[in-house]
Structures are given as structure tokens and as C-alpha cells.
């Protein structure tokens, strides 16, 4: 029984399996069988898995790509940064490992009704949800600019693929090994102007996306931020993932990042209170 008002199919709990693990620079891309999940996927949604019966909280991962009917049935891809403890655990699972996973979860990126210009900003693994978004935007005839950042070449995700998909791809690395030297915020004001963006999309950790949302705000452009904040259950049950927001009535409230997010309008997040 799905009782959400949206017409999309709801999230599912499925028994998945690690089908393949491949390297993408410093990251690992895992292909997981996930029956039913591709059909309900929209860019900005995620899946959760828990490391085991003894480690009970959910770990959230953006759905990077879906395949509804591949050789192994319905599959999804996730991009894992093995530099964190959870990432190392997940990326290290041997092919064949079976695990319970729940998804797609959360509210996806909202697509513009008009074919406007959109600026997508992502750093490191957090570029993962933006490629599928770029595709959908393109199919709505939006002009898409993608700003990709990373500390170095190893942490640049899917740039080649992005170039095939997107009108303009701007790459910045902190060490200058690829593209321009610097961080994404150096290039935001300029790109906001030059792309004539009517909307900014971003995803990542609160400290990173905050800067993007603020740059957008400064330029008077609305933003949609996919927030990577801790989600103990991921399904809306525990109230353990609240994010402070300011309502249209200017009243401070809290929303659960997992069900009312992870994608939120940048101007609604109370960034001061979140820190």
C-alpha cells in the first residue's frame, strides 16, 4: 500500500546483491541488484544499507545510475568513497555479498517546468546524483552547465561521461592537476552569470553545499541542495535526522532530512542552526 500523494511508486525493501565493483579513480562503483528500485528512481533519491545486525544504523548512498532490465535484472549503481569507515566497509564487500537495501528514498530534485538554464555543482563522490539529473534536465530541453570539483584527479568523478551529456563542463581541482586550479566556490559567481542559470542544483556534505547555496542566494538564484547529513534509519521512522529550516512564514521548524529531504530548497535550510 503506497500512501504518498505522489504518483511515483514508493520505496521498497529488497534483498540486493553486490554484482560488481569497479574503480573510478579513488572511488569504487558498486553495481547492486535491486529488484523494483530502478522503476521508482528519480535523481536525488538514495538507498540505505546497514553494515549488519550488530551495526544497526543506515548508511545512505546516492543512486548514481539505474538499469531496469540488464543481464542481472534490475540493478543500481552507487559511487563509494572508501576513505570513510562506512565507505571502506561497503566498497570492500566481496562480489556476491547479499544485503538488505531500502530505496529509492527521499524527495528527488524538483525539475523546472520551463526549459531554463541550470547550473549543477558537485564535488568528489557527490557528483553521483547529478548525472542522471543532467539527463532528465536535457530531456526537458534545459541548458545544463556542470561544475565539477575535487582535490585532485583521482577524486574527479565521471567527467568524460559528463562531457558527452552536458553542454558545458567546468572542472576544478585543488592541486590543478586537471582543469583549473581552485575550489568550486571560486568559479560559482562567474558561472552563475555566464550560464544565466535560473536554478542551481548541488549535493554533498552540509558544509560544502552550504557554500553553493549561499553563492546562489547571493546571485538571487534559487537552489536545490541534496544534503548528506546522518540518517540513522533513512525511512522517516526515527526522527533522528532533523534539519532546521525556516518556513515561508519565517517560523523556524525542523524537517526530517530523509523524507522531507534529502533535497531541500537552499534558502529554506537554516544553515546557521545546522552548523
Amino acid at each position, binding site marked *: *500500500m503506497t500512501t504518498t500523494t505522489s504518483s511515483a511508486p514508493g520505496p521498497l525493501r529488497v534483498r540486493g546483491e553486490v554484482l560488481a565493483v569497479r574503480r573510478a579513480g579513488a572511488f569504487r562503483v558498486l553495481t547492486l541488484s535491486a529488484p523494483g528500485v530502478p522503476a521508482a528512481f528519480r535523481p536525488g533519491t538514495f538507498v540505505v544499507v546497514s553494515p549488519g545486525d550488530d551495526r544497526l*544504523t543506515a548508511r545512505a548512498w546516492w543512486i548514481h545510475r539505474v538499469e531496469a532490465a540488464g543481464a542481472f535484472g534490475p540493478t543500481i549503481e552507487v559511487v563509494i568513497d572508501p576513505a570513510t569507515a562506512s565507505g571502506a566497509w561497503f566498497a570492500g564487500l566481496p562480489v556476491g555479498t547479499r544485503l538488505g537495501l531500502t530505496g529509492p528514498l527521499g524527495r528527488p530534485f524538483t525539475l523546472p517546468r520551463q526549459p531554463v538554464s541550470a547550473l549543477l555543482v558537485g564535488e568528489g563522490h557527490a557528483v553521483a546524483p547529478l548525472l542522471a539529473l543532467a539527463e532528465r534536465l536535457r530531456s526537458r530541453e534545459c541548458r545544463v552547465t556542470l561544475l565539477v570539483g575535487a582535490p585532485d584527479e583521482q577524486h574527479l568523478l565521471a567527467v568524460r561521461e559528463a562531457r558527452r551529456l552536458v553542454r558545458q563542463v567546468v572542472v576544478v581541482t585543488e592541486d590543478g592537476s586537471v582543469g583549473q586550479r581552485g575550489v568550486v566556490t571560486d568559479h560559482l559567481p562567474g558561472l552563475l552569470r555566464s550560464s544565466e542559470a535560473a536554478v542551481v542544483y548541488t549535493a554533498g556534505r552540509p558544509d560544502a553545499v552550504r557554500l553553493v547555496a549561499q553563492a546562489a542566494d547571493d546571485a538571487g538564484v534559487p537552489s536545490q541542495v541534496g544534503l548528506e547529513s*546522518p540518517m540513522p534509519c533513512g525511512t*522517516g*521512522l*526515527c526522527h533522528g535526522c532533523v534539519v532546521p529550516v525556516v518556513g515561508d512564514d519565517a517560523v523556524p521548524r525542523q524537517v526530517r532530512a530523509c*523524507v522531507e529531504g534529502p533535497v531541500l530548497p537552499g534558502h529554506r535550510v537554516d544553515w546557521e542552526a545546522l552548523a
Partner: protein
Amino acid sequence: MSDVLAGLRLAHPVMVASGCGGTGRELAPYVDLDGLAFVTRTLTREPHPGSAMPRVLESPSGLLHAVGLHNPGIEVFLSDELPWLVRAGARVLVSFCATSLGEYAELTRLLAGAPGLGGVEVNLASPDADAVGAFDAREPFHAASAVAAVRRELPADLALLVKVRPDPVRVVETARAVRDAGAGAVVVGGALAAAMPDGRPAGLSGPAIRPVTLAATRAVRRAAPEVPVVACGGVTAPEHVRAYLDAGAVAVQVGTGLLHDPTLITRLAHDLEETP
């Protein structure tokens, strides 16, 4: 099964534990709510913003939580959440706690007339209830006063559950006292009193505490067999439900297990049907 909890017609004896079913809507994609006993998160007179983050952390085979009774207040719940749950067919039990005996009575009056309500669960077991100034019910006598205050105002056709700390050493006295004060059943098992790494009071739940709750359940059944017990703690598999029922519980509640796998209740109920 139908009558054990004061006339609540339940589809099966596996209930949603307080604070672990969201508003119910979030559970709906995974579980058929029709006939399911759903205990709400603990509600209070006034809305509460809850605790600071982090609120829920992992602990070995358990969860530590300090949600701080985040809730919109009983009145908002009654207007905004209860009708949906009732329409979905859930047997709704409102968990609540209050700051004084007078407020227990007042909140019970508010709840008494709520259309479709199945009953209440008086929460005397929250490790972080101090934070909201909850009435101190550590001593059996005080626990009994709170229950008596509720009993006086609660219509007889509503179930009255009382949730008590699953402390094997103390639980029998408390269970007897609240039963004498009018509880229809005692829920043995909130989270264990614990602390977040930063020292804030927190509850410890999940498989880690199951042997404690099982011992407390047994202690009540042995020393006070007249008290119907609903057991709650660490259920994640069918054999845990059976262990609690074997120990004499009339029903079980599932909390942490649902956060880990929201379809758990369906699986547990299914197993009970297969092997009654």
C-alpha cells in the same frame, strides 16, 4: 489474540513500538497498517522540538537515542495525524507522558473523545524524559499515581497500557503497582538508561538489551502472573517473538528492528501465521 489488549482487535501480536513508526505514513510503503497495533511516539501537552543532533547513534548491537520527545503536541497530533492512521485501519495507541498528575488527567480527557483511538500507552520508561520535565515515576508509588490519574479519565473501552523500565531487579514492584492502579497491560521494556558519547542522557535499544528485557518479562510473569505483559526490546527475528511469547508475554513491540528493516513486522507476523 483479539481481546488481550482491552478489546483491541489486532491482526497479530506484533506491535509498532513508540517512537519507531514515524507518523505511520512512512511505514505504509512497507507494512499493511490494517489491523496493526501502532503506538505513537510519546506525545506531550506542548509541542517539543526535541534534542540537538546527533540524536541516534550506533552502539554494539544496539542504538543509542536521545530524540528528546520530539513531537508536535497532543492537540496537533489529534488533528493532523490520528485521522490518517485511523483511516489506514491502524489500532492506534497514543503514547504520552505529562509533567504532573493534573496534566495526566487533562491529557487523558483530551484523548478520551478522539475518534477511532484504540487506547493509550502511559510512558513511564523514557531515559530522556527528565529533559522535558516529565513527572518522576521512578518509585512504584509515583508510577501508580500517574496511572490512577489516567484510569479515572479514560473510557473503559480504551486500552490502557503502561510502559515501564525493563529492570529485572525492580520491575515486579512497578508492574504490580501500576496494575493495581488500573493498567490493562504492562509494556515491559523501554530503552535502558544510558548516555550519548557527549554525556547527554540517552536510551539504549536493540538486540544488545534483549536478554535484559526477556529477564524482566519473565520476572513479572513469575512474580505477578495476573499482570498481562507486552514485551519490547531487541526483537529482530521470529525466534525473538517466540521467546517472549513463551516467556508469557501476550504481545511484543518492535522498535529498533523496524528502523533497521521497515518490513520486519510483516515478516514476523507471517512467521507467526505459519507456525502458530
